[in-house]
């Protein structure tokens, strides 16, 4: 089975202006969402308490609310359904530093008589730990980006590195926008998903860039637009196939992975789609606009080859004892 034949080259760069408009709109509206609605930090980063309760039957949310009202520990607590109608989470901003008095026990007492239930999870993150995790999270995103930037610059060329980073920022921004849009809680798992998107989207970009590098090195053609179009066309089957398989896998995770992994899977789902798009329509055009100089690169390559040849010649001479 084949999706694409390499008989004709698609003119991707011809559509790059249109794509750029779309990207700019998406990124800007993501930022607008972030600025207005804002990220919804979960307990991991904001600190707070979560109690997950599962009932035998549908959870009696109204009666739970009434029962919790009596205890000031639950001031400002929100109760929401979690995955299915019989499971709920109680979220609170407050945390208790006491090791012996447990909010799980308190909740059990307070909810007594509201039905048959089980407390399945209690997460308490103190404010200090929360802000530390946030700091570390931001650091890890930045570090990953810088590490990748250095590696790509070293393996390719700085313009490739910058182009791939722009694509990464594009992807992460849109993923954050999507998270804000649906109002997901941003916890450590979402951070992990964002970092995975970095890796994944970069994978895609690098596969395309590798082809471009190959095209630039090998082809007599010095028109970068043609080289890019051809490279993207040639990798299109792979891009589509891998994106599809990854998409399937993440989609099953999203559908069947359970509520706890839901936010993680959602973030990845957005990331896979945006990451595939960006390697073709964001990273490559930027390379073009940076005016990557194919001729100059050829000259550089030739000079490098010459130097190496010279070195080899010297070594051969030295080894044969002529010098």
């Amino acid at each position, binding site marked *: *089975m*084949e999706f694409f034949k*390499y008989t004709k080259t698609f003119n991707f760069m011809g559509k790059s202006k249109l794509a750029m408009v779309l990207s700019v709109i998406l990124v800007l509206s993501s930022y607008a969402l972030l600025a207005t609605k804002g990220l919804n930090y979960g307990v991991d980063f904001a600190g707070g308490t979560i109690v*997950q309760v599962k009932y035998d039957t549908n959870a009696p949310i109204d009666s739970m609310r009434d029962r919790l009202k009596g205890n000031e520990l639950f001031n400002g607590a929100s109760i929401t359904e979690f995955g299915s109608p019989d499971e709920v989470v109680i979220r609170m901003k407050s*945390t208790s*530093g*006491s*090791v*012996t008095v*447990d909010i*799980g*026990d308190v909740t059990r007492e307070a909810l007594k008589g509201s039905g048959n239930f*089980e*407390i*399945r*999870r*209690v*997460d308490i993150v*103190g404010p*200090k730990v929360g802000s530390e995790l946030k700091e*570390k*999270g931001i*650091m*890890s995103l930045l570090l*990953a980006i810088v*590490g990748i930037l250095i*590696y*790509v610059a070293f393996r390719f060329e700085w313009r490739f590195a910058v182009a791939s980073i722009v694509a990464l920022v594009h992807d992460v921004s849109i993923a954050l926008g999507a998270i804000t849009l649906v109002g997901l809680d941003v916890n*450590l*798992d979402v*951070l*992990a998903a964002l970092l995975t998107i*970095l*890796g*994944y989207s*970069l*994978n895609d970009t*690098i*596969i395309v860039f*590798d*082809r471009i590098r190959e095209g630039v090195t090998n082809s007599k053609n010095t028109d970068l637009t043609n080289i890019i179009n051809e490279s993207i066309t*040639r*990798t299109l089957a792979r891009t589509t*196939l*891998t994106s*599809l*398989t*990854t998409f*399937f*896998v*993440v989609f*099953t995770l999203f559908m*069947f*992975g*359970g509520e*706890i*992994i839901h936010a*993680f*899977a959602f973030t*990845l789902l957005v990331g896979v789609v945006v990451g595939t798009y960006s390697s073709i329509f964001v990273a490559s055009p930027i390379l073009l606009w940076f005016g990557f100089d194919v001729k100059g690169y050829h000259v550089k390559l030739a000079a490098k080859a010459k130097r190496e040849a010279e070195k080899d010649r010297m070594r051969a001479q030295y080894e044969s004892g002529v010098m």
Partner: protein
Amino acid sequence: MKLNYRIVVFALAIIFGVFFSVPSLFQMDQGKKVALGLDLQGGLHMLLGVRTEEATKSRIKSIAASIKHFSDRNDILVDELKFDESSISFALLDSDDVKAVQKFLTETEGINLSVIGESFSLSLTDEEIVKTEKEAIDQAIETIRNRLDQFGLAEPVVARQGEEKILVQLAGIKTQEDEQRARELISRAAKLELMAVDEDRSARVYTMSDGDASEYGDVILEDVKNPAIKYLVREIPILDGNMLTDASMGFDQNNRPLINFKLNAEGAEIFGDFTGRSVGKRLAVVLDGKVYSAPNINERIGGGSGQISGSYTVMEAKDLAIALRSGALLAPIYLMEKRSVGPSLGADSIKASMIALIGGFVLVIIFMVVYYRAAGVIANIALIANLFIILAVMSLFGATLTLPGMAGIVLTVGMAVDANVIISERIRELIYEGKSMHKAIEDGYANAMRAILDANITTLIAAVVLYAYGTGAIKGFAITISIGILASMLTAILGTHGIYQMLESKIIKSKNNRFWFGIKG
């Protein structure tokens, strides 16, 4: 068909993978197994902080106690021995004693001493404060570890995290009662103090304020069973739990559980001296600031052993004895982070992620066979080998499989297959260009290699950062992704290449590109 080094390495890798993943897969008793994270098997994860300022306070208190004891022993009359959070002050009635006290105090380490006439004032040096705080954390880790080791759970984790945090992980806590017990055992200060009841003013205890009491160098403590009963005791204890050598549960004549304790030689001597001097008065046995009993002293008690009676259950008495035996916490601890997962939620998570893993896996496998035919089958062999190797490596290193770790494996399936997609596409391309089958395969691998390496290394960079900065469960994700990527280099690149080389003559002979690579021609 001919053997080549790649296929041999691949075969060895598969044998390794299968062999070492068997104990984990079948949950066998012997052999190294993958540990399930707390989020999968249920358990309690806590990050504890230590109130180190309390440690310096209690250091001050114990210095005060030693001054008191020294002066009592040497018949030195001390006036107004007072202490607050960071300093002690007192005065001597007889200036002849100044030298002796000064000598005694200079032998005490880590204090700044100033003497004006007969008045002494002293405080802890800055280094001593730092040292005391550090010791408090070290000691808390040690103490909590000791206590949990005796609690009877399999492999409790107690470790320092960062400078001043203590990580406690208890897997396999199944019931609410167990969790409650564990938390109480961990946080219990278990500070035992034997204190003298101030018999002269005791009658006024119910009308006295805390401020009044401290004027006299006393403190008001409540009875453990009935907070309405109050005792007025001397603020500086006769001795504390530092001098305890053993504590165990026993029973009194009515078969009620109590705790027997033994003091070391120094403690026994102090205790003997005190009881000898205080016949007819009461001695308060104080644990964590509550009076457990206050028996009358009938005679001098030598031998240095005693009892703490109170109405506890056997279980409480047992845990209390453990806490006393492992020593008191120098400073109280508090909760910075807690995550507790019930076993049923863990089981649900395993089920859900297994469904996702198997579902995703089957989808990918079918897709690959439909799209690439035999090449897809070869890629799938590599994929399955990859899973075994991940499991084997994790088992060998005793790594922990968490829920995000499961997600990492699912994701690795997607990424590992990518390498084979890239390779297969390259081979197809070269076949279309009319290259010979041998050249198509070899060049296909050579061409694909650069891209695969670059892509994998960048993903590894992200994974390493995740490992370095992630905590707990997220680390698990970084681990499985990293192992998966490294294993995929072995299986998807080297392994499949070996299979192609082995089958090369067959592929060439058959001339059926449709069967082998899913393309016409």
